C-alpha cells in the first residue's frame, strides 16, 4: 500500500523530468528531480509503493524514456490515469512500470489517501474509503509484454520480436 499522489490533466514529460536534468542515464539522479516543476516536495517525500493518480493524457510531450524511468526509480508502484499519452504508455510498459487506465479510481480518490494495487488482476483499492475499482484490461499482446516484465524480457523469452 502507498500514498496517492493526485495530479491533473496533461501532465507532460517536461514537468515529469525537465530537459535540464535528463542528461544522464543514472536513474537515481532522475528520481531526484521527478515532478520537480509541479511538486517540488515529491522527490523527498515519495515512498516505495506510492501511487500516482492522474487525469487525461498523462505523459504527453517528448519521447524521453527518462520520464517513466524517473517515476519508476522514485519507488512509485503504479501510475493510474484516466488516459495516457501514447509514447509514455508504451515506454512505461517497455521498462516494466505498471500503468493502469481507470477513470473511476481517479475520480473517486483524493491526494494523500492510501491505496493498494493488485497488478495481475488490475484491482485498485482505495484503503481510505474502502472503494474498489477495476482497471481496463490490456490487449493480449501488450499483456504478454507486461507479464514478461518489459519488452527486452519479452523478446528474450520469445527469442525474437513476434
Amino acid at each position, binding site marked *: 500500500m502507498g500514498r496517492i499522489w493526485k495530479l491533473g490533466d*496533461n501532465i*507532460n514529460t*517536461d*514537468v515529469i523530468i*525537465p*530537459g*535540464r536534468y*535528463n*542528461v*544522464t*542515464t543514472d536513474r537515481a539522479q532522475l528520481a531526484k528531480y521527478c515532478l*520537480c*516543476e*509541479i511538486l517540488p516536495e515529491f522527490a523527498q517525500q515519495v515512498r516505495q509503493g506510492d501511487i500516482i493518480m492522474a487525469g*487525461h*493524457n498523462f505523459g*504527453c*510531450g*517528448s*519521447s*524521453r*524514456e*527518462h520520464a*517513466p*524511468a524517473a517515476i519508476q526509480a522514485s519507488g512509485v508502484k503504479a501510475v493510474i490515469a484516466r*488516459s495516457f*499519452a*501514447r*509514447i509514455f504508455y*508504451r*515506454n512505461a510498459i*517497455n*521498462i516494466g512500470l505498471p500503468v493502469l487506465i481507470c477513470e473511476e479510481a481517479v475520480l473517486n480518490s483524493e491526494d494523500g489517501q492510501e491505496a493498494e494495487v493488485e497488478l495481475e488482476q488490475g484491482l485498485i483499492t482505495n484503503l481510505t474509503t474502502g472503494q474498489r475499482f477495476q482497471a481496463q484490461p490490456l*490487449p493480449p*499482446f*501488450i499483456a504478454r509484454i507486461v507479464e514478461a516484465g*518489459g*519488452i*527486452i524480457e519479452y*523478446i*528474450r523469452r520469445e527469442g*525474437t*520480436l*513476434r
Partner: protein
Amino acid sequence: MGTLAEEIFSHKLGRPVNAGEIVIVDVDHVMSHDTTSPLAIQAFRKLTGERGGRVFDSARAHIVFDHIVPAATVAAATLQRDIRVFAREQGIQILQEGICHQVMPERGFVAPGEIIVGADSHTCTYGALGAFATGMGSTDIGVAYATGRSWFRVPETINVRLTGKLQPGVYVKDVTLELVRRIGVDGANYRALEYSGPLVESLSISERFTLCNMAIEMGAKTGLVAPDATTEAWLRGRVNRSYPMLQPQNPRYERVVEVDVSDLSPLIACPPDVNNVVPVEQVEHIRIDQVFLGTCTNGRLDDLAIAASILRGRTIHPTTRMVVIPASREVYLEALRLGYIETFIQAGASVGTPGCGPCIGRHFGVLGPGERALTTMNRNFTGRMGDPTAEIYLGSPATVAATAITGHITDPRQFLA
C-alpha cells in the same frame, strides 16, 4: 483499401491491414539522438549481450547529435563520447549537422511508403513525405536497432482537410496552432492525422514539415501527407532508391476535420499548453525578453527568409534579445549565401550552430526566472526553456521577427508592405 497509414502497413506486410490491428513489421530506418541514444544503447546491450551484438543494418541506423551540440557540459560530453564508442563499434555514422528531423530527410533517409521509428517525439515530421514515421522511447529504439523490427497498433485516422487561401502575414504555423486549438492536446491520441485538401496540395515540403511536426502536439502517432509531384521533386537528388507513391484508397476516416484557412489571423499559443491559442491582437501588450527563431518546426530556409524580410534594415528592440538557429548545415549555408544570416546579425541577433538550441532548455539562450519568450518552437511547457517560472509563447517566424523589433508580441502584418 484504406487510409494512407493502412496502405503503408498493408504494402509493407503484403496483406490488407486495418486500423486497430497490432502488427510487427520490418522498419526501414531507425534514429536516435544524443539525449535518447544512451538509454537506447543500454537497451540494445541488455538485449544482445554486453558486447558482440550487431545493429540490424548500420546503413539504416542513424544517430544524430542535435540536442546539445557542441556539448555544453561535461555530463553531455561524457554521454556523447560513449555514444561515439558505440557508433564506431557498430559502423554507424554520427551526423552532427543539424536537427535530426531536418537532417534525416535532407540526407535521403526518408521516402514515401517507408516506416521509420525515431527516439524523439517529433519523428512524426517525416510524414510530410508520405512515410509512416513515429516517435518512440529509447527501449523501443534499442530493440529496433537490434532486430530491425518494431510493433505497431495500426492507428485510426483523422482526416484534416484544409481549404481556402492564407492571408498575407498568416503562415502554416498559424494553421497548425489553429488545429491544436480545435483538436486539443489529446484529441488525436493514438491516431494518425492525414492532411489533405487544396491548401495542403499547394504547400511546399518545408511547410508540410511544419504541419506534420506538430501532429504529436495533438497526441497523434504521426501526421501524413500523400506524396505528389512536389514530394518527388524534393526527393530528387536526395533519395536514389525506388519508393512506392502510396495514396489513400477509399479510406474510412474516424472523422474529418475541415478548416477553411481564409479567415485565419496570426495566432499565439500561450503557456503552458499548446492549445491555449489566441489571435495575436489579444496578447499584443505582452513584453518579451527573448525571441527564438529555429527548431524542427520552423528553422528552415523559408522560415528564415520570412523573418529576414521583416528584419532587413531594422534592429531588434533594446530590451529584447534574439536567438536564431538554422535547422541544418544545408539551411545555414543557403541562408548565408542569400544574406539572411547577415541580416540577423546586423539586427542584433545571436546566430547559433544548427541543432535544437534552447528549445529543450539546455544551452544557447535558456531563460531566467520570470522571463518571457516568443518562439517558433512546438511546445510551451513549463520549464522547457530553463527556469520553471519563465513563460513560453509560440508563434510563426513572421510574428517572432516583428516581436523582436518592438519588444512586445506584435502582429507581423504591420511590417509587411
